[in-house]
């Protein structure tokens, strides 16, 4: 019997629709794979019974002729999404025991289309991190390990990237067909690049944020992590849509993204921003980027040099704006309404003890930075300044899009690094997001496409940045890029049952 966990979303969909396979057997296969891969620590809660119930429901939908693209597709859900009656803690200790009485809009959309929830995936606490080492539930291990010189697999673990590292590892290890992620400064795209997956962050406002545990409200967006661009298109269509419960959600119809994958990008103008050539970027990435340019040129696109002059300031801007918003968004975790409470002599004492015990180091660091940059006397110099620079960054893109249609860049400045390597150096960790943060600040869609392996056999991604609500065009180019790159590599299995 063929291994159903190797199927892409689109292949599984076709097989389900033709009734070659059932949602129940597809779900069972993935639940077994999850068991087998428990040492990756990708899932922090497996909802096996719920999954089987949903799969049975999905099979009924298919039999009744009501199947959607996502019907019967078993997926992992980042812990950050509130899922009714199920563990939803954004991987934080401070939300201990919290089971929401409501369901996020994005997951509701997925369930309405018949998708199947396998469980909640691990992540950096409150989505703050680029390696998934900041989880209360421990780090996630990347299914990909480097090759040693002799060709053997290293026994060192690498990080899956973050913050959607659990989702990325789950899909890369074939324990779910796809997974939801969230991206604030690169948290979908960077882990996609580290794990050889496609990761799409749509335009800010495309997906509802209602029921997503907030990190930085002006940046957070939901998106899929999938095996292929086509899979991303199918899943995006289900997740996206206007939501009157989110005032920043945009009321424009969701197109048929899959229909946009025409394979024809002739005449399309692809911008190459010169500022993304940063010092110290590994050769492999530089080379891959050049290759990507050639692939698109070969497909008939026109390559145009562009300038995004404020790129260098995007990261420091992000590290003012995001902490500022997080310091306020995380004020609600105070031991009163839900989650952890550590008793104290007074209300304030209870607050301080609860928050000291409940938040991890990185979260505390960002809350403190955010509190500082908003405080009296510093607001203008930091927060206001950063929001002005943010306008300049957004303007850079506006000007660039007068000359080009999409922008091609590397996704991350390196491949997956070793677990523990950067954990004690916050700043070097922050630099991981150098290529993904600018689009986040401008609210633009971005997608990471797996394009090759580095010299150690670790995957590398290329990023395409689109125009606001230009997901169709973005996916079309990504599809061509994916096709040209022909990335078919899979991590060598070192976990679980190795047979």
């Amino acid at each position, binding site marked *: 019997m063929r291994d159903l966990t190797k199927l892409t979303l689109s292949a599984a969909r076709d097989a389900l629709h033709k009734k070659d396979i059932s949602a129940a057997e597809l779900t069972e296969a993935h639940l077994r794979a999850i068991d087998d891969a428990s040492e990756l620590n990708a899932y922090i809660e497996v909802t096996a019974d719920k999954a089987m119930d949903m799969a049975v429901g999905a099979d009924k939908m298919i039999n009744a002729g009501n199947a959607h693209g996502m019907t019967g597709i078993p997926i992992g859900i980042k812990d950050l999404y509130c899922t009714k009656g199920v563990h939803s803690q954004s991987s934080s200790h401070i939300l201990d025991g919290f089971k929401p009485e409501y369901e996020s809009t994005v997951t509701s959309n997925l369930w309405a289309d018949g998708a199947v929830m396998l469980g909640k995936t691990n992540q950096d606490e409150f989505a703050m991190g680029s390696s998934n080492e900041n989880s209360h539930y421990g780090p996630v291990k990347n299914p990909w390990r480097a090759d040693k010189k002799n060709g053997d697999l290293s026994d060192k673990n690498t990080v899956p990237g973050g913050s959607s590292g659990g989702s990325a590892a789950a899909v890369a290890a074939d324990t779910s067909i796809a997974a939801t992620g969230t991206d604030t400064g690169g948290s979908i795209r960077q882990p996609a690049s580290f794990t050889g997956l496609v990761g799409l962050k749509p335009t800010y406002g495309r997906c509802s944020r209602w029921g997503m545990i907030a990190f930085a409200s002006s940046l957070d967006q939901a998106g899929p992590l999938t095996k292929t661009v086509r899979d991303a298109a199918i899943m995006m269509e289900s997740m996206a849509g206007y939501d009157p419960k989110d005032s920043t959600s945009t009321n424009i119809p969701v197109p048929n993204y899959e229909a946009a994958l025409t394979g024809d990008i002739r005449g399309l103008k692809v911008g190459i921003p010169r500022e993304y050539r940063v010092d110290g970027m590994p050769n492999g990435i530089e080379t891959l980027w050049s290759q990507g340019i050639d692939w698109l040129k070969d497909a008939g696109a026109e390559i145009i040099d562009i300038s995004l002059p404020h790129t*260098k300031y995007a990261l420091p801007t992000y590290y003012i704006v995001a902490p500022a918003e997080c310091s306020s968004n995380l004020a609600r975790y105070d031991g009163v309404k839900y989650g952890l409470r550590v008793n104290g002599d007074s209300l304030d004492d*209870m607050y301080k003890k609860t*928050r000291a015990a409940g938040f991890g180091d990185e979260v505390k660091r960002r809350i403190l930075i955010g509190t500082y940059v908003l405080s009296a006397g510093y607001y203008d110099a930091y927060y206001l300044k*950063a929001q*002005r620079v943010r306008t300049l960054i957004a303007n850079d893109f506006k000007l660039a899009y007068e000359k080009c249609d999409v922008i091609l860049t590397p996704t991350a400045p390196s491949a997956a690094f070793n677990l523990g390597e950067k954990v004690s150096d916050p700043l070097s960790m922050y630099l991981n997001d150098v290529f993904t943060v600018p689009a986040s600040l401008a609210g633009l869609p971005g997608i990471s496409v797996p394009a090759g392996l580095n010299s150690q056999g670790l995957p590398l991604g290329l990023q395409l940045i689109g125009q606001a609500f230009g997901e169709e065009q973005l996916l079309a180019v990504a599809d061509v890029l994916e096709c040209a790159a022909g990335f078919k590599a899979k991590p060598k299995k070192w976990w679980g049952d190795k047979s």
Partner: protein
Amino acid sequence: MSVDKETVAKIANLARIEVSDNELENTMGELNNILDWVEQLSEVNTDGIEAMTSVVAADLPLREDKITDGGYREEVIKNAPLAEHGFFAVPKVIE
């Protein structure tokens, strides 16, 4: 601009996060590293540039004035660490 220990303590208090005296030093170092690094924004000329208030160009949606929510106390207090007689309960506050 860099922060001293006293400022770190003040921020921690504003943020209601207990930071012990021996953690202060280390936290101060970390914060200063980050603050020194973001300091580079001061070299950007932002004269006459509007601060960004929203990345999407849209109007604030307005809701109709109707009662469409609430009325489910059990669900609201269900996750509370301590609730009594339908109230959330916290250590006594003296005004």
